[in-house]
């Protein structure tokens, strides 16, 4: 395959688009597709996509399987009942390709029009200049409602996250150490993961972990793991030995 194939690979809109490209490239009749040739080339393209680490979407494989099925059907001997109209195994695929091509044609018709923003332009001061985005008035339709709902969710999500981290950051390492010590005076021994049970934010995780390290350094607590991969236990040793 030549270089132009490489460039074009990601330009295909899907398996049908790729098939239409192959039919065009080989200059074959869409009503009499040489399935063997086309499916061979089709599989080559898919192979190339894989080599280039393109994610080959499932729908490419569906059509590949379809091509294989058609190919094998066409190898079967013709039915003996000649009077009955024999159905060409390619028919269904051809119909799909033709239908798809019709819409690709329709695109061509659409973009031949005078397009706003490409060929023709609107007045720059249609809305006056004083209007800001916030005051923009929107034509109500279902999508505007979906958008509004989504924007509330997004805004609230951001606000709630901000609230949580603000509260969490108000606790200092010293306070956290005192808290943890009180906790351990009561519990004496805990599993490492239990210490983090109620901590939701990343900041709380980190501050708790730092407090633990400080208390271990000061020999208030001891970290114990009897065997590799076993539970890590935190043990209370007693009052601050250094202080």
């Amino acid at each position, binding site marked *: 395959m030549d270089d132009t194939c490489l460039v074009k690979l990601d330009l295909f809109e899907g398996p049908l688009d790729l098939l239409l490209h192959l039919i065009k490239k080989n200059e074959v009749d869409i009503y009499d597709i040489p399935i063997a040739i086309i499916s061979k080339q089709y599989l080559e393209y898919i192979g190339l996509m894989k080599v280039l680490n393109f994610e080959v979407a499932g729908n490419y494989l569906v059509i590949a399987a379809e091509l294989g099925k058609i190919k094998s059907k066409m190898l079967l001997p013709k039915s003996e009942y000649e009077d009955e109209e024999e159905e060409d195994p390619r028919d269904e695929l051809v119909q799909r390709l033709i*239908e798809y091509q019709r819409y690709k044609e329709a695109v061509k018709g659409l973009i031949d029009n005078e397009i706003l923003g*490409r060929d023709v332009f609107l007045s720059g001061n249609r809305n006056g200049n004083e209007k800001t985005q916030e005051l923009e008035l929107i034509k109500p*339709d279902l999508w505007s409602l979906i958008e509004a709902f989504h924007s509330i969710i997004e805004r609230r999500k951001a606000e709630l996250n901000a609230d949580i981290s603000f509260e969490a950051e108000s606790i200092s390492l010293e306070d956290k150490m005192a808290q943890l010590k009180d906790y351990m005076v009561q519990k004496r021994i805990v599993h490492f993961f239990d210490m983090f049970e109620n901590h939701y934010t990343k900041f709380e995780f980190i501050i708790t972990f730092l407090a633990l390290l400080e208390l271990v350094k000061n020999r208030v607590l001891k970290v114990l793991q009897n065997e590799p991969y076993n539970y890590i236990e935190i043990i209370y040793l007693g009052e601050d030995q250094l202080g």
Partner: protein
Amino acid sequence: MDNEYIKKAIECIIFISDKPVTVDDLLHVFNQFKRAELMNLLSELHDKWNEMSRGIELVEVSGGFQFRTVSEFSEVLTNYNKEIKKFRLSKAALEVAAIIAYKQPVTRVEIEEIRGVDSSGVLGYLLNRRLIEITGRKEVIGRPFIYGTSLDFLETFGLRSLKDLPDLKEIKEFEDSFNGFNMNLQKL
């Protein structure tokens, strides 16, 4: 108020409006007129602007009237203002828009059957661009959304109504049309 005055007032309304102005829009402010009278005035105004043949023209689009620059100046304008809001739609978005335009009302699954690929991202994009709308639900299992084109679609593609869409081409015309498809896309 004589008709010339009203016509100029209509001009002003069309000029400041961010969407094509319809007869219905005008009826709200000129309620002393009958619909037919306003339509006549609009048609006279349209003729007048054609006859003046300026760089700006009065165009009938999306069921209403709008002032637009004449297309022969598009290059000058894009040169003048590089930041001008340019029309940009991908091949995928154009395909989905075309399918919806011709087959509406149509569901996502129906669109994907034609294209052979997942199209949900493109649908979201076109909804955001307001080129398509959710027009209801189909009464089948799962009650999926059905989609149709919007007034903005007509405005963007310079159509007065969906009737202006060219007929879908017959199959025998395919051979010529195969070529040149990619070329046209480059233009966008």
